[in-house]
């Protein structure tokens, strides 16, 4: 006998509507739905595990407080990621004003240090590679190649033309390929 199981998932729009009226349970559901993706984005952008919880909090508090202003012109997830990207940019600016010690030794690895690099696992390698990119390129690579967001959506998030996204993607990928090639990985 086949038993049909239907899982009803409340649409984002409904949760957003409730949360914007102060329904904390609706906001909790939105948080649970998106927190891991947002944390992934923040981590890949910033590579700062010690500040990740604080940054996550900053993003979701901003989201919750801005919900009444959300007009629904774009998908909730697009709007949420845009806020997350803005928080990353703000955090970077603050770090520039108050520089802190970097957790990993130099981001670019000089020749002769390949042996040390080989000991790192590949996640660490990707994290390092991302940090070699200019911020505007890293955002596009993280959103498009790691978070799998379509180019049109990224263009909306960053308020730039789709052509700009394509161009940044092209240059960022070329730089990454060259960086990986220098580490002995041909992609």
């Amino acid at each position, binding site marked *: 006998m086949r038993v049909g199981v239907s899982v009803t998932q409340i649409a984002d729009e409904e949760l957003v509507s409730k949360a914007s009226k102060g329904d904390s349970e609706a906001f909790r559901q939105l948080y649970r739905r998106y927190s891991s993706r947002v944390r992934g984005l923040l981590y890949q952008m910033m590579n700062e595990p010690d500040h990740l919880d604080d940054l996550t909090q900053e993003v979701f508090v901003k989201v919750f407080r801005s919900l009444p202003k959300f007009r629904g012109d774009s998908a909730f997830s697009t709007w949420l990621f845009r806020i997350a990207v803005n928080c990353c940019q703000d955090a970077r600016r603050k770090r520039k004003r108050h520089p802190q010690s970097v957790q990993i030794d130099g981001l670019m690895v000089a020749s002769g240090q390949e042996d040390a690099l080989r000991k790192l696992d590949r996640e660490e390698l990707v994290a390092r590679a991302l940090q070699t990119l200019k911020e505007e390129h890293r955002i596009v690579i993280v959103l498009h190649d790691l978070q799998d967001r379509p180019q049109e959506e990224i263009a909306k998030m960053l308020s730039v033309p789709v052509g700009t996204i394509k161009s940044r993607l092209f240059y960022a990928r070329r730089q990454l390929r060259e960086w*990986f090639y220098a580490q002995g990985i041909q992609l």
Partner: protein
Amino acid sequence: MTDPLKDFLQRNAPKPPAGDDGLEDRILAAALAPKPRHLFALEGGRNQWLAAASIALVLFGGLSFLHPQQFGSTTKVELALDSSDNPQVFAVDPQTDLYEVRF
């Protein structure tokens, strides 16, 4: 066709560490807490007020420098604050006139 670079990045994407226990509740509590308001955060925004006050001080300082004999201890700067969109700042010299700066 899958791009080898994209495929490599996705397979080896840096994974964020798990959040602290209670992070969800902490975030919810912070989100629901009343938003802190600055003492001078009126409708026009505090930056507007800070800019207004700064300009008034610069104006007053400049006038004092140019005409030191006219600005004795009786000269005062009066900040006229209101909650409209156009905050006003007055530099008042009782011996001459009212200097008004509008934003």
